């Protein structure tokens, strides 16, 4: 039961990450391969404030989210002028840049690679309330994202995705929408990062690598781009599938590689047969 609650909480956390990523990738057409960096910023800022400075967790969570948003904006601005494929490549590089930053600059507990010892409030301290709270936050985020994409802003985002040059010719600078949504998504991802730290009790830089960014892509790729339902669906299906692998009876050293191989296979199959994903509304043809 404990374990089930834990998995459920992870699903909720990753749903928030997937929703945020879908906003920028699926709805606005900005291929981000570096979302893990913002997840890590959120996690580390929250954890550092809470553990080392004794800041109240909710406040730390808020600050972590804001800092992640700011970092998101800062990392995006120099990349705004490049498009398409090179943009994606640059965001991929962000993973490695931040990994070294976390590895070398982030605080860690003496003698270990990572950070632990969060002082969590009642709503998050034990597994059942933590599950309920993160699910509630995830639902709130899903509703918020849905509200955004069905609004006039959502319209502008999709126009930015389709033909930014035409949008500019209509007198609306697509870069404004790009920065707006990217910053918001980074903040949301940072929020998820703080909750992630609370769920795991222990964070270290290896949690926030290219692997994690690719994982996010697989979640929304499978679920479907430009679909809120898709993001939720993708996360639930894949994490559940992942867990079910444990029952296969593989020796423990093979479980990780097997999961990775499945993800790799999924990516290939998606790209060949169904770039749209399960319930997605956007098929990228670039």
């Amino acid at each position, binding site marked *: 039961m404990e374990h089930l609650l834990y998995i459920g909480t992870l699903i909720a956390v990753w749903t928030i990450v997937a929703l945020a990523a879908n906003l920028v990738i699926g709805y606005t057409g900005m291929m981000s391969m570096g979302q893990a960096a913002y997840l890590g910023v959120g996690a580390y800022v929250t954890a550092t404030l809470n553990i080392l400075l004794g800041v109240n967790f909710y406040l730390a969570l808020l600050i972590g989210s804001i800092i992640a948003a700011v970092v998101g904006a800062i990392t995006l601005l120099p990349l705004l002028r490049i498009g398409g494929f090179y943009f994606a490549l640059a965001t991929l590089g962000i993973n490695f840049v931040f990994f070294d930053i976390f590895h070398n600059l982030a605080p860690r507990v003496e003698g270990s690679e990572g950070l632990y010892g969060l002082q969590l409030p009642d709503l998050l301290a034990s597994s059942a309330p933590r599950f309920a709270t993160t699910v509630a936050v995830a639902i709130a985020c899903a509703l918020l994202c849905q509200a955004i994409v069905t609004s006039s802003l959502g319209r502008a985002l999709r126009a930015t995705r389709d033909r930014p040059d035409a949008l500019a010719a209509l007198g609306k600078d697509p870069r404004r929408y790009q920065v707006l949504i990217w910053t918001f998504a980074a903040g949301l991802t940072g929020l998820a990062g703080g909750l992630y730290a609370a769920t795991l009790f222990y964070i270290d830089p290896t949690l926030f690598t290219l692997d994690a960014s690719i994982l996010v892509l697989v979640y929304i790729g499978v679920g479907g781009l430009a679909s809120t339902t898709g993001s939720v669906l993708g996360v639930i299906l894949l994490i559940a599938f992942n867990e079910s692998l444990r029952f296969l009876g593989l020796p423990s050293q093979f479980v990780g*590689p097997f999961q*990775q*191989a499945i993800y790799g296979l999924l990516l290939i199959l998606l*790209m060949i047969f169904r770039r749209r994903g399960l319930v997605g509304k956007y098929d990228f043809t670039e």
Partner: protein
Amino acid sequence: MTILLQVLSTGVGLAGYYALIAVGFALIFGTLRIFHVAHGTVFMIAGYAFFSLHRLLGVNVFASAVVGVFCAVVAGLAIDKIVYGPVLRRGGGMFAVFIASLGAALIVEAGFLAWSKGVVSVARTGMLDTFIVGGVAFRAFDFVIFAFVAAAFGALYLWLHRTSTGLEVRGLTDNAYLAAVVGVNVRRTRYAIFLIASALAGLAGVLVAYDTGLEPSIGFKMLFIGVVAVILGGVRNILLGTVVGATCLGVLTAFAGFLFPEWNSFTIFLIMIVLIIIRPQGILG
């Protein structure tokens, strides 16, 4: 001053490997616009095959090396046929191919992870001599690498400039669409490109397995180094660009490794990002 020269010598030594990987990657990306992430995996396959045969089964060094390179070629061609072909045929663009390539690389890397679980496999059996000239240490093996790289590039140059396939390849670099219209046999040229690029990556894999050893993540590392070298050098002139890019990168990473030892990835990728922003076509592009 000696330190400077020492770092330089290390850098140039590194550049050899980078050049072998980068030139194959540049060939594929420059002509077919495929971001062949799995190129690093091809490199790894050769290295692990070489290690298995030579170290585990005691096969002679040269035979193992040849088989290693052969495995790389088979892997490269297979990935193109089984993964890229279907993606492209069903309307996938450059980005979809990139993701599929990533998927292939993940699968193969998973295989290696399962096999050796992060243990570095070393195949070295000698040739570790270094000799000192003017206070700077040179590794004997660096000269071996240099010899191989020079031979490979020489052969490449002859192929590109003296054979009809090579001419077609150069045509593809300039304008793939036009080349297809004019009647370049794109399929045959494609085979040739993947074959040669994978062979070069395989050669690098064998050399690295012999020299510093392998671990499952080295495929990705080498690949991205190759990518940065190609971005640095540009794809307009594949051979010269790769040499320039690889040398610059080798020297840069040697200096970075010396000055900021904990910031290797950071430096390389920051360079890549800055390059993409200010001059994606590279130094020569």
